[in-house]
């Protein structure tokens, strides 16, 4: 029976690997996502992309089985098409409702529909995040198509999230439900603004900083606020109010928001070629 001992050799190897890891973490922070390590990351993602495509196709039947999806491919394609149509219909409805106030007050002359004047790149979702902590998806468009970090991502139904990382052929999108995600929003009824934050996969969003006396209604549409410096363009549907309450003595309401987009079933998205004003 082999019995391993804590030897100097083992400890030296461990120390070496630990120090290398810490050095990598430090350099990554210092680079801030722009240096050599980020280039290494982008290169690795691009290099692995073809292999992942092949593996994804190969594992699809197994994934479908375990995911409880046992339908024929043709039926899946049909469902995907129907879902896309439904998303578009929901988006049109929400966009109309959400834009009503601003359309009348500020954008009447421009006749803007939801993000229709912003150039966009259509992309297919190729994988979800292989992580238990981040809620992201990877799409098959990257910097070679003009995609850059920070760009908003939408479907016909509304806001999906924001580009977090980009390589030449791929982009990682942080979903609204990610716990690190926050977006400035506006209640369409009152015009009050707040911050919607993610609470994890399959969880609704939480809206903060809406004053306690503000009139809110269940089902009320909530759109991006688009205030100065916002990371998102205005009037993009974010979701609808699921519930709201004001704890005794609180100065702001606790509003729960159902995302407009079904983030668990993303297949196609649009990346808006839009930069933060003034950036």
């Amino acid at each position: 029976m082999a019995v391993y001992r804590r030897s100097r050799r083992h400890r030296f190897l461990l120390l070496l690997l630990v120090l290398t890891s810490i050095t990598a973490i430090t350099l990554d922070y210092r680079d801030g996502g722009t240096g050599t390590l980020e280039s290494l990351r982008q290169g690795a993602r691009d290099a692995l992309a073809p292999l992942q495509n092949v593996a994804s196709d190969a594992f699809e039947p197994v994934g479908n089985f375990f995911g409880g999806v046992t339908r024929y491919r043709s039926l899946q394609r049909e469902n995907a098409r129907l879902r896309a149509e439904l998303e578009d219909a929901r988006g049109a409805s929400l966009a109309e409702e959400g834009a009503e106030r601003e359309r009348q007050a500020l954008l009447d002359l421009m006749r803007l529909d939801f993000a229709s004047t912003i150039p966009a790149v259509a992309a297919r979702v190729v994988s979800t995040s292989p992580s238990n902590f981040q809620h992201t998806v990877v799409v098959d468009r990257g910097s070679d198509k003009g995609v850059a970090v920070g760009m908003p991502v939408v479907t016909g139904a509304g806001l999906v999230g924001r580009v977090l990382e980009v390589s030449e052929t791929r982009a990682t999108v942080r979903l609204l439900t990610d716990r690190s995600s926050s977006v400035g929003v506006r209640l369409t009824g009152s015009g009050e603004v707040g911050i919607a934050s993610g609470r994890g996969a399959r969880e609704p969003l939480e809206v903060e900083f809406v004053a306690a006396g503000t009139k809110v209604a269940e089902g009320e549409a909530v759109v991006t606020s688009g205030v100065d410096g916002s990371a998102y363009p205005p009037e993009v549907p974010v979701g609808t109010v699921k519930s709201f309450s004001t704890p005794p003595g609180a100065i702001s309401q606790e509003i729960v928001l159902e995302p407009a987009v079904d983030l668990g079933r993303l297949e196609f998205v649009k990346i808006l070629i839009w930069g933060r004003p003034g950036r």
Partner: protein
Amino acid sequence: MITDIRFRLPVALLLCLLVHTTLLPEIRIAGVMPDVMLLAAIAAGLEAGPSYGAVMGFASGILSDLLLPTPLGLSALVFTLVGYTVGLAKAGLLRDSPVFPVAVAFVASSAGLGLFALTGSMIGETGLVNAHLATVMLVVGITNGILVKPVLRLLRWSLAGRPPERAYAE
């Protein structure tokens, strides 16, 4: 034989990576997927001892970091420590019971995920330590426990004919 290992080990690691990034994200329980990259480090420690566990942990961690929007080196640091510790634990607790690898995979996976979240929070990553963390640790522990046998078999194949760890006694 060394040449064989140098070929087989990367192949095993790449296979784990492809399964981890393409298949497992579709198989989630309570929104949580198994972590086969962490499991590769645990299996290497179980199969070949602390040095191999640490090296495999570093390699699988770096590969994970390259694909995740977390700081490069965070997974590598945690997986290295987990692989090394499992290798040492094997020395102290080595049993031939078939339940032993499952129990080690459960404990090491849960602890590894907890360590990842804590270390990430310490260096400024947000959203890692929250009420959902306990669920993540539990589900990853259970699912990795289920998957440990096939991963051990893969690692056994890839590490066959390896040079022995220098610091061991028969």
